[in-house]
């Protein structure tokens, strides 16, 4: 018995997450993403390497590096099996995909799938709610756990026979303005495949970082400047809306906050609907005031770039690789009073990445045009990804037999791997794209039938009962599944009988009886 992991993407890099895992003969594809930094064949996972039919596809969340290749895959490889994702992911993913299509086609590019492919693909989706135990077929069981990160993000547990694993997708171990922290049960696992975007970073208090951001924005608009917040339309945008809307209210600011995308408007409706996927605070107050009904945030169109006076503009794309954010950047970057905020992570090759590198200078925006960047740059230091402490906490809590790291930067991933090995004594792999990792899983147990006398002696009320402690903060303390321990002195009175390779557990008295019968003739 073994678990085979074929890494098709996000191996020693961030982008096009895709791992095909074979557990006891069942083949599952976890995520089906695209790589935004490539424009050639490397943009998609190399699906040709898959060596057999898939039993199901599981998508962890709506980010394009996790779902971007799905319409292409389902069409090109005529995949008709089940695709599992959570409710918010199903609602928000088509928005992401369609927006992406628009941006690509707008730039004169071509994509390997169409809007029709997106809707065809979404028809195949089976919805999952958190913690539901879903029987994919007789042998394969899956379950989603809350991952934080973005609305609807989930970690997935999969079990076939005795072998089981968790694929984390992207997750966050600390709650933010609109989402809670990742939550999972203590499970017996052979393998955990974890993201490792911040494999070596340890972040300090989120609160302080948020304040820095608010101060930078406030100073800029007070000085009459314009703030450009390049962002994905979904996820980070809503978090920052809540942050700014609340701040504007408290500080009594009147400067307009614009968002440019029709997509964001639609997304806000979904955010209002998926209450049970948000943070506790938002859940508790939705009846009085839905946190996603913003007072100061208004939608706007492209003309906003040319307006006079201070404002805050949220625009896609998030890494300044195109769209309105790039247009606004070209217009606003040459002026000192303006401010551009950058997301915590920018893919290599994008303008966002160049700016993050820190040199405030001339930047080529196209092959032939360049601009002087004189505006202020503020890097958002709070992230929707867990930091290295969070990764270690999760792994310690789950203590699987094996760990595999994906979705990170090569050098830090290897450093984290060493740390996992030395601190926890757990085997850890960091495979590259195209590699297959074979994880042995020993048979956990042998099965035996039991006799009534055995059961009776085991159920005797004299037994000392105790409950396994689940002390970590990862699960609620009322966890009902913590096993009841029957500390059993009387197992010593039990024997296992092997008769023609059939095993049966029985009480020793029964054995004595058998022996006496045997002796008689």
């Amino acid at each position, binding site marked *: 018995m073994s678990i085979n992991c074929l890494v098709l993407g996000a191996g020693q890099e961030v982008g096009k997450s895709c791992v095909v895992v074979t557990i006891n003969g069942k083949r599952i594809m976890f995520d089906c993403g695209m790589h935004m930094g490539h424009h050639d064949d490397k943009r998609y996972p190399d699906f040709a390497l898959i060596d057999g039919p898939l039993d199901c596809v599981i998508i962890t969340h709506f980010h394009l590096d996790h779902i971007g290749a799905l319409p292409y895959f389902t069409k090109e490889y005529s995949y008709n099996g089940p695709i599992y994702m959570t*409710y918010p992911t*199903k*609602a928000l993913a088509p928005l992401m995909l369609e927006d992406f299509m628009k941006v690509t086609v707008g730039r004169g590019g071509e994509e390997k799938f169409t809007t029709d492919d997106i809707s065809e693909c979404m028809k195949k989706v089976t*919805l999952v*709610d*958190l*913690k*539901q*135990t*879903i029987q994919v077929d007789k042998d394969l069981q899956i379950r989603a756990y809350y991952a934080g990160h973005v609305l609807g993000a989930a970690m997935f547990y999969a079990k076939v026979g005795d072998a089981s694993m968790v694929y984390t997708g992207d997750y966050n171990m600390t709650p933010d303005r609109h989402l809670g922290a990742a939550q999972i049960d203590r499970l017996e696992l052979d393998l955990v495949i974890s993201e490792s975007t911040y494999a070596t970073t340890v972040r300090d208090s989120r609160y302080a970082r948020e304040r820095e951001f608010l101060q930078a924005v406030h100073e800029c608009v007070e000085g009459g400047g314009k703030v450009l917040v390049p962002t994905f339309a979904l996820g980070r945008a809503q978090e920052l809306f809540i942050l700014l809307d609340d701040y504007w209210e408290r500080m009594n600011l009147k400067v307009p906050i614009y968002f440019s995308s029709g997509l964001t408007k*639609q997304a806000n*409706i979904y955010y*209002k*609907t*998926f*209450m*049970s996927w948000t943070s506790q605070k938002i859940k508790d107050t*939705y*009846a009085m005031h*839905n946190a996603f009904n913003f007072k100061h945030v208004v939608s706007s169109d492209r003309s906003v770039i040319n307006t006079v006076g201070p404002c805050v503009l949220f625009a896609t794309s998030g890494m300044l690789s195109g769209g309105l954010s790039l247009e606004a950047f070209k217009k606003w970057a040459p002026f000192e009073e303006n401010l551009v905020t950058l997301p915590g992570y920018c893919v290599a090759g994008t303008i966002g990445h160049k700016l993050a590198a820190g040199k405030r200078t001339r930047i080529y925006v196209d092959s032939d045009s360049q601009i002087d960047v004189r505006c202020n740059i503020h890097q958002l230091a709070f992230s929707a990804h867990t930091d290295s402490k969070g990764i270690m906490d999760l792994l310690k809590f789950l203590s699987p037999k094996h760990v595999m790291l994906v979705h990170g930067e090569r050098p830090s991933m290897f450093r984290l791997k060493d740390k996992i090995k030395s601190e926890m004594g757990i085997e850890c792999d960091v495979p590259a794209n195209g590699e297959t990792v074979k994880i042995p899983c*020993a*048979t*956990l*147990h*042998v*099965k*035996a*039938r*039991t006799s*009534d006398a*055995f*059961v009776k002696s*085991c*159920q005797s009320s004299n037994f000392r009962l105790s409950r396994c402690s689940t002390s970590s903060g990862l699960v609620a303390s*009322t966890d*009902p*599944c913590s*096993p*009841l*321990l*029957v*500390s*059993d002195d009387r*197992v*010593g009175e*039990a*024997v*296992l*009988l*092997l*008769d*023609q390779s059939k095993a049966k*557990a029985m009480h020793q008295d029964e*054995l004595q009886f*058998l*022996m006496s019968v*045997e*002796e008689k003739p």
Partner: protein
Amino acid sequence: MKLTCLSSGSGYQFPPCHILEDVCGFRILLDCPLDLSALSVFSPVPPDNDFVSDGKASYDSARDCFDKEQEIQKRQKIETPLHGKDLIHDELWYKTVKNLHLWDPSSIDVVLISSVMGMLGLPFLTRAEGFSAKIYATDAAARLARLMMEDLIAMNMEYQYFYGPRESGGPHWMRWEELELLRPELKKVVVGKDGTELGGWLPLYSSADVMDCMRKVQTLKYAETACYNGTLVLQPFSSGSEIGSCNWTIDGPKRNIAWLSCSIFASAHAMNFDYGALRGRDLVLYSDKQFLPLMDEVQSNDASSTIPSNDLSSLSRYCSADKDDWKELTESLLSTDEILEKEKMDFICSCILQSVQAGGSVVIPYNRLGILLQLLEMIPVLLESLAADVPIYVISSMAAELLAFTNVIPEWASKPRQEKMFSGEPMFSHVDLVNKRKLHVFSAIHSPELLTTWQEPCIIFAPHWSLRLGPVVHLLRRWSGDENSLLILEDGVDPDIALLPFKPLEMKVLQCSFLPERRLPKVDCMLKLLQPKILVLPDDLKEKLDFSNPSLDSFSVLYYTEGETLSLPSSPEGTLDLEIASVLAERFAWQNLGRQDVMYTRLEGELVMEQGKFRLLPGITSADSHPSKNKE
């Protein structure tokens, strides 16, 4: 294992209540409802002043002449028709499940909740001394139940305010001489048919009781697994009857039980009945009396079955989980329910329309959330077609929260609602109506905003369906004399008693059952699917149900009776599997037992009961202190 039926209930608003004993050693209470229909023995407040003094006077005079004219009095009562004055004029008390209070609360290990209505009596139980059971309910049902309990408390407060501080020593109507004076129709409600139910009456729980109760409930999603004590694996699956309603599976080491509560194949708003998930249980307990209407059709209507009776082969095929057949069958099962419900709703709407056209107002004391939601969608469309400007009001202390809640629970809604949400619309259109000022939501009937928008004729949704509490009482007083106005009652109340305080009544009354009846083929087919070894049914069905059908005789059928305890046979094949950790297996020291092919070894380790399975694991003691092979 034993089953006691404490109450077989009466329909949606008062679901049945059972106790299962010795389920792998545990005692499980199935639902904890409240018989709110019994509130009808009380007179509502605020009565107009004359009415009250009238009522009090009649009581006093009754008491005066008690001794002398007892006989005459009694005879008079039987001869004269029941009058509003005969109702009890006192603070409201609430009727809990009969005999539940006779069970020691501390002896209950688990409480399973199937619906909002099955939860309304729970705060009485959770505040009882010694109560420590684990309570499981679906997340949505628990949240809805909290709203309903809070609303009940708010309405009750108005009543209490009127009657002043609670008298000590129990209310006067509970004294035997007062009970003797009660009209037989009312007395039957108060003490029950056999006179044993007086002990179940209690004054309403408090907000603090509700909070405390809710804290003790563990909420689950559909198909989420909870494990009690490592032994019982519990899972709720959608029953289709309302948002958050469920059937439960209870899987223990030796026993797999499916408990079916009131279930509906296709609901217009709630997630469909997930009966496929109930398969593979050896015991099916059916607690739904709604089975009844279908039985009439057994004899008369067999030909109209949705599935041709000769199609048994296809049935067995989809039992083996052939997906396409499954789908086909499910669709045919769903369609009839939908049609029935649609027809009913259309009829109700046409009545509403007639009334407002004639200038009358309509009062709908809603009970089921689903009906409220559906009518809120259908009525505006109708009014639009008439171009009539008739406002719709929802008045309840919890109305705003309730309506907000319905649009944030796509995970509990029916497929069409989910599709609506995925296409970018709100699942229920009431948000839109409020924005367009066609629907007005108020927390109380005396709120100033209500007075400024008030307009007649209008259509009002307001609690309480017992017609004894809440805004409905005021509204009925206002319109009871208007022959053009209309009151829509759901089933569950006895209109003869419920309407007494509002007589003489010119207003039209429409009473209707909203539960679609199940047709035999459906149940037939469902049982074939579930393939239980033992089917446990309410005894009302004994005469009516025919299991001679060869396709149905593969299981034994037991009937339970209200108030009696039924012993359930234990599972025939009682072998339990034991999983021995491989680390331990490697250390086995096999010995020969005389014969060559029979060997034995001592077992050691820590025995754990987990997810309903025995597992032998390397415990701390055994691994360390007996490092093994040479032992023995």
